[in-house]
């Protein structure tokens, strides 16, 4: 084979190609950052929602549930749970509050987290905020 195939050219393509696509990715990130205000429902980001996100995180809800499709696949999607529960934060609060501490025999059960009323309201507000993010019409239906 008289084909020329040099290591230095392979290396140049690796460095040049990587740099090229990093720059492209950064350009798209820049555009995304500018477009997000129209989609990410940031107007609804109150202190309560921020607290709700913290409650969400500090109880590792993502360890069982998905949120906008990401997380664990053990329990239902919660990105649209506010809508699924009839556009009601009270229903969300009631559900979390009502989990039996010892679980439901033989079934997958959500733990009883003993959240305060403030925390319960906050996490419900967070889920309401999440449900109003423009997710390009995902999930396909109300079941999540």
């Amino acid at each position, binding site marked *: 084979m008289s084909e020329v195939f040099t290591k230095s050219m*392979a290396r140049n393509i690796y460095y040049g*190609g*990587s740099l090229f696509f990093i720059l492209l990715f950064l350009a798209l990130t820049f555009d*995304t950052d500018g477009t997000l205000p129209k989609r990410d429902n940031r107007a609804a980001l109150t202190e309560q929602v921020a607290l709700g996100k913290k409650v969400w*995180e500090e109880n590792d809800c*993502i360890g069982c549930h998905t949120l906008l*499709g*990401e997380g664990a696949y053990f329990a239902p999607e919660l990105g649209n749970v506010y809508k699924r529960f009839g556009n009601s934060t009270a229903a969300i609060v009631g559900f979390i509050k009502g989990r039996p501490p010892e679980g439901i025999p033989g079934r997958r059960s959500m733990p009883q987290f003993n959240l305060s009323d403030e925390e319960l309201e906050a996490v419900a507000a967070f889920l309401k905020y999440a449900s109003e*993010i423009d997710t390009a019409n995902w999930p*396909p239906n109300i079941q999540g």
Partner: protein
Amino acid sequence: MQYRSQAVAKPYFIAAIGLFVGQILFGLVMGLQYVWGDFLFPEIPFNVARMVHTNLLIVWLLFGFMGAAYYLVPEESERELHSPGLAILLFWVFLIAGALTILGYLLVPYAGLAKLTGNDLLPTMGREFLEQPTITKIGIVIVALGFLYNIGLTILGGRKTVVNLVLLTGLTGLALLFLFAFYNPDNLVKDKFYWWWVVHLWVEGVWELILGSILAFVLIKVTGVDREVIEKWLYVIIAMTLITGIIGTGHHYYWIGTPEYWQWWGSIFSAMEPIPFFMMTVFAFNMVNRRRREHPNKAAVLWALGTAVMAFLGAGVWGFLHTLAPVNYYTHGTQITAAHGHMAFYGAYVMIVLTMISYAMPILRGQEASDERSQVLEMWSFWLMTVSMVFITLFLTGAGILQVWLQRYSTDPIPFMAAQEKIAIFYWLREIAGVVFLIGLVLYVVSFFVKGGRPAMASAADTA
């Protein structure tokens, strides 16, 4: 072993295998909880078991990567490690911090752990795969910096081979991108957007550089093919990885509130992501076919080829299955994702670490290759683990297809929990396959303690 300091790799490999066993045990617990909902409830709820399962995976792979680096960097650089003492110190720091974190998950409610570790000061916990307390994350950064310092000085002060430089780039990228774990804005969309800079750009970016360089190193050693040939293919493969994988991040930006053009950018580039994996498969088989020596360590060759094939299937094919936006619209966040995740992680990263351990461990223990009986057992464990992982993937794929149909696609979609009950049979089958995987893993561990058969050295007449 050409350099004495390579020996620091040994504790890293042992710890990696130990944590691997733990990971699989918790995987079996979770698998059982899928069908026996209140198993260990409320002592070990599912989210805790999952956290332990996934965090142990990450930690033991990192142990594996670090061990691999400590083994191969001195040999490639043709000099001793800059500081073996630092390597051992960081080993204990990382192991103890890791063990404390896992114990924290298991013994304290997660919210209590958050309080205990001062998550209020810099909230980073409670996001998938990044559940570690902030203080653990800071520890990871410190260990990573110390490790990079040690490896970096060794590489820069010695022979700079392509394998070394690619490995160093990969490890540096790993450390740098981890810093995005500390960015946790209240804005959920931004949170998720940059969360993927850790998760995706790790596993479909810089980790593949680490994978490629380890595979190249082992292939150079076991095939005796000219380094020049292997190195230029390494460059081409990782170039393709980054060319497709960086914009490929877009396949995570379809439905999380990000602009809709990501559906096009993400689909187009991630559809190309199987190409580097395919090239890797062709490359590995080509090198083995063109081998200029018969290495006595048959098991290591098997692992190397297995990595190439399974990474292509798991990361390439199973990734492609649901990467196009119109498909992903229905499969996003279902068992299809779980199926892909299992085979991709096993095929690409578990197997490359086991490849390296398989190659290096006998040498670290004073033999070029293990005894024949030990190797036979190791190959049995290879097949048991690999085949059961294929079945785990197939069962989860079956579960996912049914789930998508019942819950997302049919004209009368049913609720999540109702769908889960209808696909329980797949979860049972998955659990059985998981038990077989554990048996394979036990055999793997046992293979380290088996002696006898023809001493492997005898067949290595042409080793130089």
